[in-house]
């Protein structure tokens, strides 16, 4: 049996995003790659893209189930498996990077999430990540309280913040005008980006564009 049910696993799927555009699966993988790089290089944790993660996970689960039906002798089996492994790598690296930041900046991140909820804006962490962050933060707190009783409240007063001024490389996906260069002086030089331009610039200058998807980090 050669033509197995794999086809059904790769029909184009709707995905909700701001522009309500229908994305094809290749485009979604592309988006996953960009979000992976964004998360890799941005100093702060970014709004989660669990929508894409879930969607791709569904895809590879279905595909892997179908693969069981494919004969081992079929050369295509190895290739299908390779693609599954590639996507799985992308997703786990992405999630791991987020966890790393959540652990490092847990207290600050939780505070920001709280204020996002209060302002009624979208939270950055997924439900699972939020629970993880809370548990992690709690255990750190308890640890400090038990071994450093002489410094009460140390985790609340001594926050570790990401360095938002950190320099990043980016590629612009659109024409963008008037980005302020953050060079540590008071002069506010502006630059324009063309679609496809690549620059090295402070994350602080472009973080909004990273979050909105107008540029992506490289």
């Amino acid at each position, binding site marked *: 049996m050669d*033509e197995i049910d794999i086809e059904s696993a790769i029909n184009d799927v709707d995905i909700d995003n701001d522009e309500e555009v229908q994305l094809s699966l290749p485009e979604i993988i592309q988006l996953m790659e960009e979000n992976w790089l964004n998360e890799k290089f941005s100093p702060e944790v970014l709004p989660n893209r669990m929508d894409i993660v879930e969607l791709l996970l569904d895809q590879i689960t279905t595909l892997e189930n179908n693969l069981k039906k494919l004969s081992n002798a079929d050369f295509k089996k190895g290739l299908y498996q390779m693609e599954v492994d590639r996507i799985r790598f992308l997703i786990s690296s992405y999630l791991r990077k987020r966890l790393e930041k959540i652990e490092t900046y847990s207290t600050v991140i939780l505070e920001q999430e709280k204020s996002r909820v209060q302002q009624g804006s979208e939270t950055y962490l997924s439900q699972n990540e939020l629970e993880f962050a809370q548990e992690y933060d709690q255990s750190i707190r308890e640890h400090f309280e038990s071994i450093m009783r002489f410094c009460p409240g140390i985790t609340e007063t001594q926050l570790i913040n990401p360095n938002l001024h*950190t320099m990043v490389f980016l590629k612009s996906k659109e024409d963008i005008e008037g980005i302020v260069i953050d*060079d540590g002086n008071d002069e506010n030089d502006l630059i324009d980006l063309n679609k496809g331009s*690549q620059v*090295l610039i402070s994350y602080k200058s472009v973080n909004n564009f990273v979050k909105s998807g107008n540029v992506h980090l*490289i």
Partner: protein
Amino acid sequence: MDPDEVEFLGEKSLVEIVPTFNSAPIYFIGGDVGPFRASIPIRVPLWVAVNLKKQQQCKIIPPDWMDLEKLEFLKEEEKSNKSFVKMPSDHYMIEAKLILGCAADDIPKTDEIRTIIKDIWDIRMSKLRSSMDDMIKKSAMYAAVDNLTLMEINSIRPLLPHALDQIYRIKTNKKALSNRSQGTTSTLSESRTSFSSKT
């Protein structure tokens, strides 16, 4: 980022192969590839090409730019130009490494090509070093890197961005001075000192 991760991204670029077999398409999540007809050229992602080649299921057709004459020209251009020349492929090093690594028998004059690509890379690396030094000397907090490929950008990471981060820190510490005299700063390090006085 690890060079392997850059390679991972570069492996998606398309390359032409001549399959030695017939087969229905492969329905990848990332898009269909095929159908394959023996001796009919077809474009596939690089990682697929390498895999098929290793199983001796195809010949790889070198990309247009992987041609001694074109590369000679490119090298001259790179040498005579002060700035970086636009490369014919965004992932030329990855394509060169993978294709020449597994399909040397499909590419004429492999050794010469290998050498000249490495020459071009080395010229660019040397330009990169001067550019980095230049940027640091000017403490420039912005640079256009349009014609650099991802592998090249990655080669100056983390050194260049981290060094600039430190320059930024040293520079902006000065501002804390004027603030401090007004007693309004609360930098992290200061909070330690106030903390120790509390205890």
